[in-house]
């Protein structure tokens, strides 16, 4: 399996997570109750505006999800390609890219935070959405970024480099092939 195939597998896994997180957020923010009490009171007699505000806020969160997971995919792809170029002779050497894996994970979490600051706080979405919905969305996204990066790298990386991904032996691998 080539490095590009691994990148493609990582893309599929990220798309699966994007879809799942989007559906969750979509249903989470699917009613007027997802908006702040003050907003609902202000536009109580204008359901169309309320729906417009709700829809815009939810889509901003979905943007946040898509962008954050896109960054995760890019970072995981870079890491997978770097790992692909390694020829470890032992489990110790197979774990030699764990440090980089952690750094990329931290970067993807930092990127998620930065994107959230720009997309959500920059557009004052927190002033429209109920705090419970926003907190739940942040949790979903945070967990998704952590999980998708771990799953995508653990599953897609070539077998001998799996020790670089913590707890990767809990997941199946996609490749059983010669280097």
């Amino acid at each position, binding site marked *: 399996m080539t490095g590009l195939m691994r990148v493609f597998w990582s893309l599929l896994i990220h798309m699966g997570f994007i879809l799942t997180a989007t559906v969750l957020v979509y249903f989470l923010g699917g009613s007027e109750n997802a908006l702040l009490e003050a907003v609902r009171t202000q536009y109580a007699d204008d359901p169309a505006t309320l729906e417009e505000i709700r829809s815009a806020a939810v889509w901003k969160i979905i943007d946040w999800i898509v962008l954050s997971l896109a960054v995760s995919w890019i970072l995981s792809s870079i890491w997978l390609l770097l790992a692909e170029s390694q020829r470890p*002779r032992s489990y110790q050497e197979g774990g030699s890219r764990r440090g980089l894996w952690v750094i990329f994970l931290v970067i993807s979490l930092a990127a998620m935070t930065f994107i959230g600051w720009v997309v959500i706080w920059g557009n004052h979405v927190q002033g429209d959405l109920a705090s419970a919905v926003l907190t739940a969305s942040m949790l979903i996204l945070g967990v998704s970024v952590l999980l998708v990066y771990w799953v995508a790298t653990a599953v897609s990386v070539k077998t001998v480099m799996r020790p670089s991904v913590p707890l990767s032996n809990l997941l199946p691998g996609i490749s059983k092939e010669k280097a």
Partner: protein
Amino acid sequence: MINILIGVGGTGAKVVEATMVLLAAGLGPKNLHVGLVDQDNANGNVARTRAFISDYREFRRSWAGSAPDNMIDWKGSGRGEEGLPFCRTEVTELFGDTSTWCPGGDQTTLRNTIGLNLTDKQKDLFDLLFMPGEEEQDLTLGEGYRGRAHVGAAALISKLTDPANPLTANVTELMAGGGSRTQVNIFVVGSAFGGTGAAGFPTIARELNRIRTSRNFTNKGNVAIGGALMLPYFGFAPPDANEKDLVVTTDELLPKTQLALEHYGNLFESEQAFDRFYLVGWDRFFQLGYHQAGNAEQVNPALLPELFAAAGALNFLSGGAELLQPVPAEERVRICARETKHVRWSDFPLPNVQARLGQLLRFATYWRFVVGDLVAQRRPWIGKGNWTHRLSGKTTREDALPGLTALETLLDRILRFGAVIEETALDDWDAGPWRLGAFHDPSHKRQPTDPVRLVRSHPEGPALFSETVRNDDGSEIRRDAAAVFNDLETDEKLEAGGHRGYGRVVAAAFNATRLS
């Protein structure tokens, strides 16, 4: 087909030791009966070979199915699937429960053997042929024949004439082929110099030839006899003054060899004892730098010519029906010589030596310095653990411990043999077929009888493994430790076959360490 290998004397035993290494590499026939004949039963060389044979057999016994959860499949399914080549030859000790026959006992002398109860005329003849006193007639034979081949030959013949002696009895039974018309290949190896080998080699071969040509022999025409005669290839330091007259010195080796070769020349003209005959010599002498007359102290390091002779033995034993065909007298003696100054794989008179012996040395190195640690690791609470845990399944290391211990003991012997060969070869080796120097124990003080010790573990094991075996052009094997590790993690065909438990681990590691 029945195959028999008989090593006569200390040098013969050392050739058998080298043959055991080649058998472990998978270069031998499916079965082999191995026997050592030495008057010096406590001889260190013989004892070492006997221990090697014992360890080899113990390894096979441990993995042959006595512990059904951990076994190695040496037979294969027969559907194109071959068994594991490593130690595939079933080795049987020629003399029942032992591989060694000491013809005369420890304290015997020639006088006790054939010099008692003689008539006056017989006694005169005895005195005429053999010097009185400790030089010959009363020489204690418990430490071998000490270079007096005529003394040894007389003593040995007297023992061989007893039909109940273990050698004649067991070999005659095997030569009969179990009542069916089965081909039997017998290979005898010994030295042309020294005592026991020089006396026993032609004597035993002639006795075997006598049996196969006797009128009542039922398996006539199906017994092939081959032999390898070791010409002088090593020298001792001068012996002590009080031993000077009782042992062979280096200066005496060549004249004695010349006499021996003249004897063989005459023998071949009158009696075709051998169907194939191999002579092994060396340009220079390997100087051992010490002298031991015999007994347990005589533990000579393994030397290159013995490995060549072993390859010759397996060259013969791997032969089929063509061995039974008469060959012109001028082709009966095989002569080969190295074309290069330094030893290379292609010099060995046997196909696949590089592939098989190279793989064995790589496997031994990889097991000792990489796999052993993985096997010893605890299985994780969650997940499948390393590849040895995955392959061994539910079997625990404790269940397989006897077999794993037998394996490590055998691999220790093989690695030590390879390291000593490399170390003692000196100028003949330069960029030779393998390189184990990186694993030498630097704290070991080099001794002539114990030139090398290997470390138990090495932090750079996987890296050094890649440099263990070389091609003849000096290049390293391309299939390096990274490729081996990758295959062990990903290639499920490595453990294919009927192996079980840790037998799958052994099979996978052996197959993964192949050269290409």
